[in-house]
């Protein structure tokens, strides 16, 4: 992932967010990290609405998405993102405590990149996120509303 890319973390549990952030940084990920406390904030940012921060053009984003969140849950966020012709390109990693096979099946059908169940033990959780970070350091991520689109190449 390009150094300019931004990692979006939709996570209502502040403790989990801090752990995720620290573990990514421990894996050498030095990208900007933004947190959203619920699905509504995440969608407002991505669909550029509301009074809060919104996304910028020409940027790369990757989303780590929790499922159980207030207001709008992660499944709905995933569905909205993957139904948008431009936002669908954003890789979405589900990171959740939910281990229900139907939920996992549904998320993959909707188009999540990968589904990870949060380990219960603190150390295991930190280690899992560190390995997510190792993966992020080797993947390419597309720009959203980037130059290629403006130039009509895409």
């Amino acid at each position: 992932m390009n150094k300019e890319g931004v990692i979006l973390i939709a996570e209502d549990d502040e403790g989990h967010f801090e752990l995720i952030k620290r573990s990514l940084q421990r894996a050498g990920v030095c990208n900007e990290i933004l947190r959203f406390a619920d699905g509504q904030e995440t969608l407002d940012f991505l669909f550029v609405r509301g009074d809060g921060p919104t996304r910028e053009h020409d940027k790369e984003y990757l989303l780590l998405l929790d499922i159980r969140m207030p207001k709008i849950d992660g499944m709905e966020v995933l569905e909205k993102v993957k139904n948008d012709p431009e936002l669908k390109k954003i890789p979405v990693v589900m990171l959740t405590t939910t281990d229900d096979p139907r939920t996992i099946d549904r998320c993959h059908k909707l188009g999540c990149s990968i589904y990870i169940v949060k380990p219960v033990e603190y150390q295991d959780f930190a280690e899992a996120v560190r390995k997510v970070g190792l993966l992020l350091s080797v993947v390419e991520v597309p720009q959203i509303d980037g130059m290629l689109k403006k130039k009509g190449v895409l």
Partner: protein
Amino acid sequence: MNKDAVILIAEDDPGHVELVKKNLWRSCVENDILQFRNGQEILDFLFRRDDTAKHGEKGCYLLLLDIRMPKIDGQEVLRRIKEDEELKKMPVIILTTTDEAIEVDRFYEMGCSFYIVKPADYTKFMEAVENLGAFLSLEGVRVPVVDGVGVC
């Protein structure tokens, strides 16, 4: 990822296949790995058109897909997978030498899970696959059953 899940590699370069397999093993990936030399072979396997294919009744699969391959290329393979109601659930990770932004864009638009550029440098290529392997070996990674509801 549960050991029942099978890793499929579609890659025409035998040297790259060996390197990928070796480095996945080094990062403790213990899943079965099946290899396919071109797009036709992998599609025959996935769509069960090949009598000799060892396609299980209900399998959990994850595909590592090269783009430039003989007969049918990776783009066409991804397109057919993501058009199929069941196969679309399978995570597809692009592993290619092509690093053009337009390709990255196109493959994410088509629904790949991740796009990884094979570094030209041998050591860096090994490291990249090791990082991928460390991730895939995570116990928490869940891959859905194709042709049913369930997980590996």
